[in-house]
């Protein structure tokens, strides 16, 4: 029997037109701690620490039950990730890292949380620390977000002053710290092991796994890494319950989601809806349609490393991991880039290959050299100097790169190349020089010799 088709064109976001936002609720000055408290802020923390709503294992189990999946790209179940931490040993400190590096091209959602709802993130971090019994949470924010780091640091200071972080939080006996760490411009530091190296004050070279961070993380201690938006969901789950969370949006990938939508649309920006929104609803209704009434041509659904989809592939597809897998891509960070009919896919791919070449840390040969060759070949094609067989060479290069490196940056570099060529090959071919054969019978008089390809 054939499996039922997932992408049948029905939305999984339910009645999204009347959706009430929870991650970025429409409250003015929510970034101020008093306003946040007036709107129920830190009540989840009180419920857990003062009223004993959950013990650490119970909180982890509840989050697992809610079905929350990481919003940083890999969509791994968060409660499950927490359960990988070894049993508590009072002599060994443990840490949580909040990943606010957000450098994947097309992704700009965490920035809105820093700006508009930082205390939700802080509350989530303290709850996360409680669930895994962490001594401290290090939040790594990319250095370019200097203004937002200041905003966030101010919020952390306010929370310290009010006793939500620090020694003996709310008189519960639980103590934990939050440290804001400023990056300095390196995409690779979003990769979890590279982030840990960077926190330790080193060059951001990813580590070989295993050992996994839960065994040996920062300073060799058990560590869990979660994205900013992931942790922001935790207080919501405590307040409203796992059932509320798991009943929202797509069944196997539930919850509220920040969609960062950019490109050739009328109203770009970050939108909050449940997961499982129809791509067509997002483009036509939410974002006010394509810019200048042009035709929709292609979509990158979740940051530059997710394979590009053609307009046909987007028909009936929704924004959750199952649906996008069927469509031929991934949810990634839900940073969507919409392209109209005038977009040159070769020039587009050329810029992506430049990005990955620039950001490769250089530890592994397939990545360091391979990303360079990807860029060189795509550039050559874009400039009209490429040959037809360069396309196959590019695909072969992707085979040589994927799965042969320490971290996933190399895969992330190869996927866009592979899938953009597969799905828009005609555009690449149109820019390539046709193969020329020496000795071809161009006159058609039958006088020419052997046919030898010269390119």
């Amino acid at each position, binding site marked *: 029997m054939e499996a039922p088709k997932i992408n049948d064109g029905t939305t999984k976001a339910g009645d999204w037109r009347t959706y009430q936002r929870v991650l970025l609720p429409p409250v*003015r000055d929510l970034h101020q701690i008093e306003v946040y408290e007036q709107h129920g802020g830190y009540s989840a923390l009180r419920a857990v620490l003062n009223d004993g709503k959950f013990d650490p294992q119970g909180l982890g189990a509840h989050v697992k039950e809610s079905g929350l999946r990481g919003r940083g790209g890999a969509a791994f179940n968060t409660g499950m990730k927490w359960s990988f931490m070894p049993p508590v040993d009072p002599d060994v400190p443990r840490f949580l890292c909040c990943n606010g590096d957000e450098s994947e091209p097309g992704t700009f959602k965490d*920035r809105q949380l820093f700006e508009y709802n930082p205390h939700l993130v802080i509350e989530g971090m303290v709850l996360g620390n409680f669930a895994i019994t962490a001594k401290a949470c290090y939040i790594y924010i990319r250095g370019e977000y200097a203004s937002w780091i200041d905003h966030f640091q101010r919020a952390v200071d306010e929370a310290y002053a009010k006793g939500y972080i620090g020694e003996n939080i709310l008189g519960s006996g639980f103590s934990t710290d939050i*440290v804001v760490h*400023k990056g300095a*411009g390196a995409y690779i530091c979003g990769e979890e092991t590279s982030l840990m190296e960077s926190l330790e*004050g080193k060059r951001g070279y990813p580590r070989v796994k295993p050992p996994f961070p839960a065994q040996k993380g920062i300073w060799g201690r058990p560590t869990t890494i979660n994205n900013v938006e992931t942790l922001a969901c935790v207080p919501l789950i405590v307040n409203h319950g796992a059932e509320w969370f798991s009943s929202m949006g797509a069944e196997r990938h539930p919850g509220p989601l920040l969609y960062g939508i950019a490109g050739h649309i009328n109203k*770009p920006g970050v939108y909050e809806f449940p997961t499982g929104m129809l791509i067509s609803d997002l483009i036509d209704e939410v974002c006010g349609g394509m810019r200048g009434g042009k035709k929709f041509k292609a979509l*990158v659904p979740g940051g*530059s490393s997710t394979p590009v989809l053609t307009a046909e592939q987007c028909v009936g597809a929704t924004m959750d991991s199952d649906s996008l897998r069927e469509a031929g891509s991934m949810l990634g960070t839900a940073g969507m880039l919409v392209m109209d009919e005038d977009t040159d896919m070769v020039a587009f791919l050329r810029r992506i290959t430049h990005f990955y070449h*620039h950001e490769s840390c250089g530890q592994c040969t397939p990545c360091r050299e391979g990303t360079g060759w990807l860029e060189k070949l795509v550039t050559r094609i874009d400039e009209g100097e490429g040959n037809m067989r360069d396309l196959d060479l590019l695909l072969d290069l992707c085979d040589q790169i994927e799965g042969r490196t320490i971290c996933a940056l190399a895969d992330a570099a190869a996927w866009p190349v592979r899938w953009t060529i597969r799905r828009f090959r005609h555009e690449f071919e149109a820019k390539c020089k046709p193969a020329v054969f020496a000795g071809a019978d161009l006159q058609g008089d039958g006088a020419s010799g052997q046919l030898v390809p010269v390119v």
Partner: protein
Amino acid sequence: MDSPSPKPLYVPGQVPERRFSDEELVWTAEEQQRIDGWVAQYPTSDGAVMKVLWLAQEKFAWLPAEVIKFVAETLGLPYAKVFGVATFYTQYYKQEMGTWVLDVCTCFACQLCGGYDMLHYLEDQLGITKGETTEDGMFSIQEVECLGACGSAPMLQVTNGPYIHNLTAAKCDTLLAGLRAGKVPAFESVTLPQDEDDLGGNRRSDAEAVEAYQTPPVSETIE
């Protein structure tokens, strides 16, 4: 990569060319206090190295060899280690830069919305190309990767600080004139489209400037 690897700033055994005197290479009491606070945030003093490098860059404008050495001595770390960190991250300046560094994003969302048009416009206006500094030392232009503001593409960042969103040629002119007059651009809060309906625009009453989301400009470069 675009640029060749930087020349070694400091070769052991050689005396590097000095830019700052010993009297200049000191922390004030207030700075030293901040550094001590940072060191306390990490299990080892290594963790504070990125923060101290940032402080050094704010103070000395860039990181020549003697400043890196100064940071290394402050934290009791080997010079080579701090040098390694300083050269890994792109935001630490290993060369002298202009007073204002214009980091123009041309990554894919900005590319589609005219990032290269803005880059070339600024290059024309200042008479330099990316990677260069104007003769009067006022401006440097760099082409950078996605800055996490794709919703307000094309955009740029001024000297590792404020973001300028939804760039147009006219906006570039205003920016350059303001910077020439020494005005640091104010923090701009970009409204969320859903807030237009629910809140009537900006939700932060303390933001000095508000930039509405808007239909991205039409790019000339990518067709």
